[in-house]
């Protein structure tokens, strides 16, 4: 469905938890190279489960994941895949530098060898001056930037983000969204971004995968054909933006049948 060659395909992928809950039912999706995809839906729609499946953090119980290009699903190198959690998930005992250095260290690199890469990643998120600081001295937004730098340091082809900015205030969130888009445009990797915010998904994505709960499933896919960068001009207050939001809202609510969206 995407214009470019697919990076990974999900074919009728299902996940049933040991307690019997069907977290994800028959999800089929082609993820294109360089795409920015959002998984949008209320709690329990399987959006995080789908992300964790792609990261290899959990196994599917049905269907298959096909990687057309590296990263390979199992056994091989999986280091060109990055994951950003909802919390910054930093090591409190390590400096910002050492937190970003972690993936390189686990790959067997020495601090000297990784130095340039770590500094470059910190530069990308605007934290060059904070390399020797401990996480507790940073604000929530800055911690999230460190978390993003940690995934960027390996130059991933696919960046999986699980509601990364959900706990941040509106201003910080909007700044991080714009910075993320700028980094993504410059480095041309693929992003899958899990969110429960319609506005955020419209603002960020090429394509929105709308999901519904009980059982978790894909109910619609909506393309947002708008040029980037989207912070230039006034896209976020334009009629076109509103039209997209309404379209996505409708797709979301059509499948909720009286279920309240919980935030």
């Amino acid at each position, binding site marked *: 469905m995407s214009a470019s060659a697919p990076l990974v395909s999900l074919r009728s992928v299902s996940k049933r938890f040991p307690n019997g809950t069907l977290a994800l039912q028959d999800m089929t999706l082609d993820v294109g190279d360089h795409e920015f995809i959002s998984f949008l839906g209320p709690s329990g729609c399987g959006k995080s489960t789908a992300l964790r499946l792609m990261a290899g953090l959990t196994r599917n119980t049905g269907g298959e994941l096909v990687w057309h290009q590296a990263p390979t699903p199992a056994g091989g190198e999986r280091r060109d895949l990055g994951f950003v959690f909802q919390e910054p998930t930093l*090591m409190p005992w390590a400096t910002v530098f050492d937190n970003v250095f972690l993936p390189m260290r*686990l790959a067997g690199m020495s601090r000297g060898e990784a130095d340039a890469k770590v500094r470059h990643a910190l530069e990308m998120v605007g934290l060059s001056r904070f390399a020797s600081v401990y996480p507790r001295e940073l604000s929530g937004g800055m911690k999230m930037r460190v978390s993003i730098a940690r995934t960027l340091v390996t130059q991933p082809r696919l960046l999986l983000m699980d509601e990364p900015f959900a706990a941040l205030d509106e201003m910080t969130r909007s700044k991080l969204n714009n910075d993320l888009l700028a980094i993504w445009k410059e480095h041309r990797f693929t992003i899958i971004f899990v969110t429960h915010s319609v506005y955020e998904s419209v603002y960020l994505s090429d394509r929105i995968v709308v999901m519904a709960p009980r059982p978790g499933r894909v109910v619609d896919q909506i393309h947002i054909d708008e040029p980037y960068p989207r912070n230039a001009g006034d896209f976020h207050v334009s009629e076109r933006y509103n039209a997209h939001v309404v379209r996505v809202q409708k797709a979301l609510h059509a499948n909720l049948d009286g279920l309240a969206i919980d935030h």
Partner: protein
Amino acid sequence: MNPSTASPLPAVQASNPAEQIARAGRREAGLRVILPLALIALLLVAWEAIVRINQIPHYILPAPTLVLRTLFEQWHSLAPSLWFTVKLTLMALAAAVVGGVLLAMAFALSKWVEIGLFPLAVVMQVTPIVAIAPLILIYVDNTMAALLICAWIVAFFPILSNTVIGLKSADSNLRDLFGLYRASPWQLFRFLLVPSALPYFLGGLKIAGGLALIGAVVAEFTAGSAGRNTGLASRILESMFRTEIPMMFAALLLVSLLGIVIFVAFAGLAKLMIGHWHESEMRRES
């Protein structure tokens, strides 16, 4: 800072706020030391006064000055006993650290090891050491070894249980992240589990240090002053039999001082090792 006290020339006397805060901080730090010391001094003076005014005989309650004088005069005979107790305590503690940490690691690696052995560790912990010390002294020929075992049993449990909790307390998302980057078991242990467990281990060490000393003293009490090399506990017993009460107080004073030194040393160690990141060692700004 207070507008009502602002003088026409505020710059002359009012220093900048950062300096004021620093000065307030120093004042508080000073008070933290002075207040307990002053209280102790007051108690000692009161003790001295009560003894002198009521002319209490020294074999019932010696005055603090007499205790101190005894300590200095008998130092040549007390010093080897102090050294013996220090050695016993530190050896028991070292053995407790090695045993506790190794066992905690085994528990972390296999839940069946934990399920099998944890109840035994609890049994060892809850059985009063005074009750089992005589048995250990019967079964173990070497008195020093027997004393060591007693002190070890007391000191080992807090290290074990704290380290077990610490090793399990690693953030689950960080664990996932380590998995995602294909960390080896050794890397997971070295870069995630050890740092996560460190604050808990150090907390256990602080408790175990004091307990090792208590274990050493209790064991020696039970063993009696049998051997030639005897620790402070034997000296306390011995001076009790001879009704050398000032000597008893002097030995007691050394035991307390030793306990304080051990506690302060481990508190300092904790500050040094995790002070820069862990909540427990952080000073709150208010």
